[in-house]
């Protein structure tokens, strides 16, 4: 016997410029819809509780923890995941500064940083801190990430 088919909510949205129409459970979490239904596994599960930021995506341009959002909530919305970024200045800065080790938190950091760059391209050091403290990195000392961010926002190192 198979599990109940409760995927009865049609949802339509745009992710990385592509329209998607799918059916989900009301209780389905956006992070897992992206990962399991759409194969966008760049967004990571690090806590499923909104505490670590590894699942950060942009919804209507704002960084959002996709582990704390129902898929049905994004009906009609536009989203960007790490897979939607190619050669962005943020990615290039992370490459240049090797601002990662294991790489697991990296998509979340990059997407958050990208959201900040879009919303506040002239963000100061304090604003950058406030935004980036939403994400946890366990491998680096954050020094590398700070250096990358400083490249992105043209701050002095």
């Amino acid at each position, binding site marked *: *016997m*198979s*599990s*109940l088919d409760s995927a009865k909510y049609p949802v339509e949205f745009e992710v990385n410029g592509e329209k998607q129409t799918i059916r989900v*459970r009301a*209780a389905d979490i956006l992070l897992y819809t992206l*990962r*399991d239904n759409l*194969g*966008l*596994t*760049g*967004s*990571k*599960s*690090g*806590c*499923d*509780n*909104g*505490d*670590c930021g*590894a699942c950060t995506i942009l919804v209507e341009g704002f960084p959002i923890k996709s582990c704390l959002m129902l898929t049905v909530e994004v009906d009609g919305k536009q989203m960007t*995941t*790490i*897979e939607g*970024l*190619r050669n962005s200045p943020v*990615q290039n800065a*992370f*490459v240049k500064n*090797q601002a*990662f*080790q*294991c*790489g*697991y*938190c*990296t*998509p979340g950091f*990059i997407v958050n940083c990208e959201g900040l760059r879009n919303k506040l391209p002239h963000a100061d050091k304090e604003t950058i*801190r406030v935004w*980036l*403290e939403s*994400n*946890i*990195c*366990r*491998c*680096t*000392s*954050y*020094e*590398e*990430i*700070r250096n990358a961010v400083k490249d992105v926002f043209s701050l002095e190192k």
Partner: protein
Amino acid sequence: MLGYDEKGGVKISSSLGKSIPRKETWEKVTGITRYVNDISTPGLFHVKIAISPHAHAKIITIDSSEAMKIPGVKEVITGRDFPILTGSPLADRPPIAIDKVRYYGEPVALVVADQDYIAEMAANRIKVVYELLPAVLSPREALQKNAPLVHERLAEYKQHEEVYPEPGTNVANRTKIRKGNMEEGWRKSHHTVEVEVTLPQSDHAAMEMRCCTAEIMPDGKVIFHSASQSPFVIRRAISQSFHIPIHKVIVHTPLVGGSFGGKSAIQMEFLAYMASRAVGGRAVKLVNSREVDMISSPVHIGLDATVKLGCTREGKLMATEILHLYDGGAYSDRGAVMSRSGAIDCTGPYRIDNVHCDSLCMYTNHPYSTSYRGFGHPELTFAMERAVDLLANLVNMDPLEFRFNNAIGPGDTTPTQTLLDRSNLGDLPMCIAKLKSLIDWDDLPHRKIDGHLIKARGVCCFWKTSDTPTDAGAGAVIVFNPDGSINLLCGAVEIGQGTRTALTQLLAEKLRMDDQMIHISTGVNTETDPQHWKTVASRSTFLVGNAILNAADDAIVQLKSIAAIVMQCLPTDLDVGAGKVFFKDRPAKGISIDKIANGYKFPNGNTIGGQVIGRGSYAMRNLTSLDPETGKGNPGPEWTVGAQAVEVELNTKEYTYKIVKAATVIDAGKVINPEFARSQVTGGMSMGLSLASREAFLFNDQGAIINPQFRTYKLIRYGEQPQYFVDFVETPHLEAPYGLRGIGEHGLIGMPAALANSLTLAAGVELNHLPLTPEMIWRTIHDSV
């Protein structure tokens, strides 16, 4: 760049000392990296664990009937279904609890279902009736004569490596160090101090939760995908536990999302195998939630320790008596070995001729402990370095000078009576000297008051050897492609440390070729890659690196022998470099490797040689097990030494503080990739500062963990990082590739001690208990008045 220089010679650049980027750089910034949980297979079943809500209780009944009624549930598995005991060195742990639970979070049942939320729903509906037992909630409590026993049948457990459990008690392992003459040591000690320290258990908190898939094929092959530091040990453990020929167990380990020792234990794999077997071998996936990863899978070991330390009037260390009570938790796992490591290096990097140490791994009703970055050393270092600071203060000596004067050196012996030389030890006095100038130690005050803010600096030294099995080893294969590029095959797991990239640098250096011409996969496959013991103990560049150098030598012989025929000379006339085999005395004359990499084809079609494949292996040399009565023996090939400092700014209004600066000087033997090396050291320091300042499992009085989430179990975040200072000393370890020493763990080791020493100086009270929260400082001050 490589090529001919002006004089017609072969110009070869060095790969060593170059900060080349990680091979998998672009994968990691574009989100296409596949960690285990990113791999999907159609029809995969999902496994969830039901866990114990009690720290110590008898299991009376398990009722899974409600769970089985849920559509989509395939099977419920309990401990009785697979009554085996696992664990190394001591097989004391059923993968699923049998008859009783020994910690809060212990697996009591598994559910297999067609969807993960269904499995979770069913796990929530398994009804277990328990009868509570009195719980042992600290290692000191565990040592009491009348303490409840965590394991009643300790004597019956199978032992895989040396381990000395004491049946009838909660001692899982005891290591003794007996060196010198204690009576004489104390007689010569004009000053003595005694400190008692505690470090609670905490979490590895790798960002990727542990995850594993298992599938049993019709021919009996078992295929795992696991986020692990030990794919080859998974193979062995599954083979032993379930009587499967080792070659039929195949483990794939892709890139791992951080591990810090926590993914070296074999835990999820047993469960995934059982789950797959219960559903006829179907592919199953088991992924921990963060909460389960924190409390159910193994954790960072705790320590309660007492250190008595004595020195002469002039400040020369004479004697120490040490009791380590490691909090191994409910099962001993690698905790038993960590407690031994805690004995091996118990004195810290100081010459002390008279040493008495008992290092015990205690069973408690806490989560069980496994390897954690530093392997017992952050803990022993915290204990010893608090005592050293106290003693330096007592003899009124600068704490760095005191350490400099007592630094262990060539000709001295370790607590295990291993004779040290420049190669196996490294240069601690040089590290201390460099640290001094790095942080302007002599020119700036160690304590400075500015209103309610007090700045203070604390220091410490550390050392560490690897304490591996005496036969730990690795293999490597290098396969030449037709274009002269190389595929490097080896079993070192990429956990973020950059090992696989650094290994290509070692090979490039040896073959004097462009490192971009060396390919290495991101993942490890036990079916095709040569064995590597485990990716732990900062040992991969040493073991695998040596294997690679041997493989390169093997390939060089093959290249030269083919080239010698083509060039009509002796192999000994030839040299290899810059993608060519050339005459030693006429470097401009040679043959490009791509012409001979797959054999050389003469113009008439005749071919000599074949694909060039170099093979090499390496195993630890001259290690011995320790004498059970004195600890005498040779535990590791070399010691990495270093000196560290932390500067804090304490706000005396509420005892909050900022970590302003942190510095490390480490004898790296040889720095292979400077950017990786710095990042490994600062990353370790960050983890150590996070651990020391805030990380701890908080237990209620029944032994339940009340902070199993990052919301309440706090980690250091962006913006809190201090200014980091890192420098290296390079004293070659002669047995290692290019003289390198392990540095992956070491940045962490002294951070708790240095932070405690700085805060002790700032606050004016002895701070001997981690974590060093503002409340801990406040309470210490409050209690001392």
